[in-house]
């Protein structure tokens, strides 16, 4: 039997990388450095998905975010003049609202984590570990199966939203279609 990979050491390592990357994203002045830090954060997040025995989600995270979206980010950022961007003011004066929002989100997390329903907490310690070799298949069952599938509608609605966004972008960019 394989030793478990999901040890606390890896969790703290990945969490540290994510937080450090996140701080770098907002503190660096150079936009390309920010984008690279964001890529590190996204990759560490893929690692966290792996620790949750969800390799499919981790793979999709790498393909879509690190490989696709961030490349387009960099593509746009490279066209910006760095000299001018470095003179711009980096932080706006909305820290009060920011702290309030962060506190509200943190409070929500703590509330969800400590809430008990019928005497049981939502996230008990020592959950059963899923079989990672079945992850892709179980996601497909949740999406497409006639009886167990219940997320097909939400999935299709989300893709429709994306389609609307694409058409909107084309309409705004092209004067004559």
């Amino acid at each position, binding site marked *: 039997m394989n030793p478990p990979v999901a040890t606390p050491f890896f969790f703290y390592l990945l969490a540290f990388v994510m937080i450090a990357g996140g701080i770098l994203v907002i503190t660096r002045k150079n936009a390309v450095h920010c984008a690279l830090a964001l890529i590190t954060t996204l990759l560490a997040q893929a690692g966290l998905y792996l620790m949750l025995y969800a390799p499919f989600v981790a793979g999709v995270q790498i*393909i879509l975010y690190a490989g696709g979206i961030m490349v387009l980010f960099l593509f746009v950022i490279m066209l910006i003049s760095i000299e001018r961007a470095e003179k711009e003011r980096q932080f706006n004066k909305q820290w009060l609202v920011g702290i309030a929002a962060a506190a509200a989100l943190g409070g929500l997390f703590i509330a969800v984590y400590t809430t008990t329903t019928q005497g049981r907490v939502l996230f008990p310690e020592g959950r059963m570990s899923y079989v990672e070799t079945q992850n*892709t298949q179980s996601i497909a069952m949740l999406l497409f199966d006639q009886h167990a599938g219940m997320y097909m509608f939400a999935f299709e609605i989300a893709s429709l939203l994306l389609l609307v966004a694409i058409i909107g972008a084309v309409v705004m960019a092209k004067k004559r279609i």
Partner: protein
Amino acid sequence: MNELVQYISSYLTSDKTPGVAGNFFWATVYILLVFVGLSVAVIAMNWLERKILAHMQVRLGPMRVGPHGLLQPIADALKLLLKEDIIPAEADVTVFWIAPFIVVLAAFTVFVVVPFGPTHAITDMNIGILFMLGVSSLSVLGIVTAGWASNSHYPLIGALRSSAQMVSYEVAMGLAVVSAIMMTSLTGQGTLSMIGIVQAQLAEHQWFLFKFFPLGLIAFGIFAIAMVAETNRAPFDLPEAESELTAGFHTEYSGFRWSLFFLAEYSAMIAVSSIAVTLWMGGWLRPFPNALSGDTWDQIFSFAPAATFLFLAAMTFFNVVRMPKHPLFRIQTAGLAGFGAVLGLIGLVLLWTPARVRVEDIFWFAAKVAGFMYLYIWYRGTFPRYRFDQLMKVGWKVLLPTGLALLILTAVVGMRTELLADIQGAWRR
């Protein structure tokens, strides 16, 4: 001590890959073997490309360093290591320093799941092909940052071209891959695992290249075009078009850092070729594993690796005889004879039954990949470079619609019995 020996030897009877069996020792050994094998393949590819291109253009190619220029890649590597490493004054030093490593890491990491045989892979993942596509798509980040960090015009233009090109062709590539994955589901349960995909081809008695003729062939064609664009090779080598951009995104790189880009380019070529081989050409399977099955045919086909090496040795000795008889060529002749002797020795070792059985799957996989590598060189010697708008047109207006239509057709053909039953049921109602 005894436990350690037992831990190491316990894997030898296993029929799984070391990653799946959870044996760290053999996983490390396999990783080192793959790394060394890949480096040797890149060196050999360097020599072969120059030699084959030269012969296509009726030149001789490298002839001076070693017999027939055999030592040329080693001399080149030495030159690159000893060369001065220049970092432009206006460059962003940190990013300039990181960029080649991103490219190399992305190009080498994908080999974790490449199946050289049913047990000859570092590991087998449930998401194998997804992992390969994802990690190899990270290499574009290295190219883009390299071009930007150089802080110079040609590299920046090269990087912009490269990112636009690789993102465009990734879409068509993904569609072709999905159609191959759909074919695996005909065995009962579809799979993304690289080993599972090859086993599905064995179970369905057909390479996916010929499955649902001509659908498999078209999917393979889309992939074969997209993979050349993904690796920035001719005729899609716009990011490093030498007549327009000097050397594109790596213009400002020199010495060791440049050689990292070189290494990454060639190992990425091998990586995408092995995806194509695994998905459409039966991976490690020998030709006709179902039609010509049985012990006799297994025996006959297992002599192929030895026969290949012995043939190569014979060709080398034929050329030893043809070497000029002038005393100046004495060392070169001896060197070539030594090379032939090494090839012949490898061939003789492969005749030995334990080696013969173990190496057969790796041989067939490598032979198929080598075919693709030859195609890469052939393209470079044959096709003129695309213009950028032509490149985008091919990607978005030809490959993408074809890929989408192919996806739907594959689904319809694969589900045809179920679909017909549904339609008949609706008719009766």
